[in-house]
């Protein structure tokens, strides 16, 4: 029983806006299955008293004071934009969404 199905990979690809061919999906489903199975062995070692690690550093409450730093000049901010109009990023409209 694979830990990830081909349909799940196709769903994830759609969420990530990746247009994958059938061959890609087959290959990725198999590769992701191996990865997930390998990672799952960790779960065998972890017991209930070991909380999942989201952050390796034992730090909390790292803050910045509410002080303004200079922003980029708009031409810098827009330098990597694929297209610019009226000092704004011009992007394709995504249909069927707001």
């Amino acid at each position, binding site marked *: 029983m694979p830990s990830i199905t081909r349909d799940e990979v196709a769903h994830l690809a759609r*969420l*990530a*806006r990746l247009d994958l061919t059938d061959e890609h999906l087959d290959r990725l489903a198999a590769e992701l299955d191996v990865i997930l199975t390998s990672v799952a062995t960790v779960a065998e070692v972890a017991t209930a008293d070991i909380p999942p690690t*989201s*952050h390796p*550093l034992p*730090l*909390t*409450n*790292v*803050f*910045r*004071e*509410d*002080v*303004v*730093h200079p*922003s*980029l*000049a*708009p031409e810098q*901010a*827009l330098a*990597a934009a694929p297209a610019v*109009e*009226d*000092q*704004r*990023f*011009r*992007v*394709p*409209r*995504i*249909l*069927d*969404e*707001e």
Partner: protein
Amino acid sequence: MSAQPDALLPFADAVATFDPVLGLEVHVELGTATKMFCGCPTGFGAPPNTQTCPTCLGLPGSLPVVNRVAVESAIRIGLALHSDIAPWCRFARKNYFYPDMPKNYQVSQYDEPIAVGGWLDVDVPTPDGPRRVRVEIERAHMEEDTGKTTHQGGETGRIHGADYSLVDYNRAGIPLIEIVTKPIEGTGASAPEVARAYVAELRALVRALGVSDAHMHQGSLRCDVNVSLRRGPDQPYGTRSETKNVNSLRSTERAVRYEIQRQAAVLAGGGRVVQETRHWHEDTGLTTPGRSKEQAEDYRYFPEPDLVPLAPSDEWVAQLRRTLPEMPAARRRRLQADWAVSDFEMQSIVNAGALDPIEATVADGADPAAARKWWLGELARVANERGVEVGELPIFPADVARVVALVESGALTDTLARRVVDGVLAGEGSPDDVVAARGLKVVDDDAALLAAIDEALAANAEVAEKIRGGKVQAAGVVVGAVMKATRGQADAARVRELLLARLGVSG
């Protein structure tokens, strides 16, 4: 979008047949100087893309750092809502692809919000005076705002090639607090008013806390309205719709009313309500369907690896608790007692948004009744004409207090005072400037008034005879003529007094 208008059931029929359940999600944009995770400024209305940096643009190699004041504001909001403050919580990534977030994810909180539970009491206006309703709070969490997209091109959306969007990331990364209610049940026909009163109370609360200016028309306080209907209080919840883009108190009320009527028509016709996001259109008063709701798992939330957890200490929370101001409800009770007004009058003041202006006017020395008369009368009328809140009119409470003082001292009549206020609203300066510039002074020179009275009597000889004959009520004609001759700058009561004395008649 939908060419066919929605079928609506009359509201009274809808609430007679169905039991509405509300859920309100309010986004409050915090008034911090800088963004949630970077030092970019947050001013409203700056030219596009002038308040961005590598962090809020999501450029490679940039890292977020949490704004301390934003967290303090979140905790203070939680405390004011009687929530429990989480002793430990994390930020989470909400992954979605939409150009309003340059990173392709929004930093939010998922299953570990900073504030859990709580309640807010709201006073719902009724014809019999306010009725108190307790709204239970589910949670309040921190997140970052998105950029502003403007869609360009073909109105109909048919010419896809011509359609594109322009994005301004000035707003991306501004700290937001999202406050989510538990399902609000048992409101029945008053559901629209409860929704409005809740948003109004929350707005008053965050303003009192000083954490946001909470201007709905500028989007610094926004409401998503969830509505579902069921056959009765003992039935399971119905399918809900979520209406976004609700940007005024009035819209909150209207959007709830509309969704109740729309869903009731669907259900009464044997149909099923679709779970979807809908958009409120202020101009038409309609909601239209948006995208169908993505499942939470599609957002693939996971703990934000670039930010360490938050662990507010008991000392810090206690210290923040000591900074809480008088809550709006307590303040209203105090002012109501100070001003000696009824529940109903207080409700009118609050509804008109006149609480702050009246309090400030009284603080500047005006009698509460006089202050109330101005802010609920002439000024409310002008604000309504201009489509703004009364507090946004270009007149200071101190100006109103000065006008009240001038009327009390007899320097202005009510008529003149209105002209002075008109002048201040027209940008002609302070009340004293307007009095001087427009020459608006009460003619208090009795000799001048008597001369005007004699002229008016000569021009109205018949009326003069009637008055002499005892028809005192005819005096109004002569008083009116004198007021006209003095361009309204005489004290009508004094004119009448002098007139009657002149004719040897007692009033």
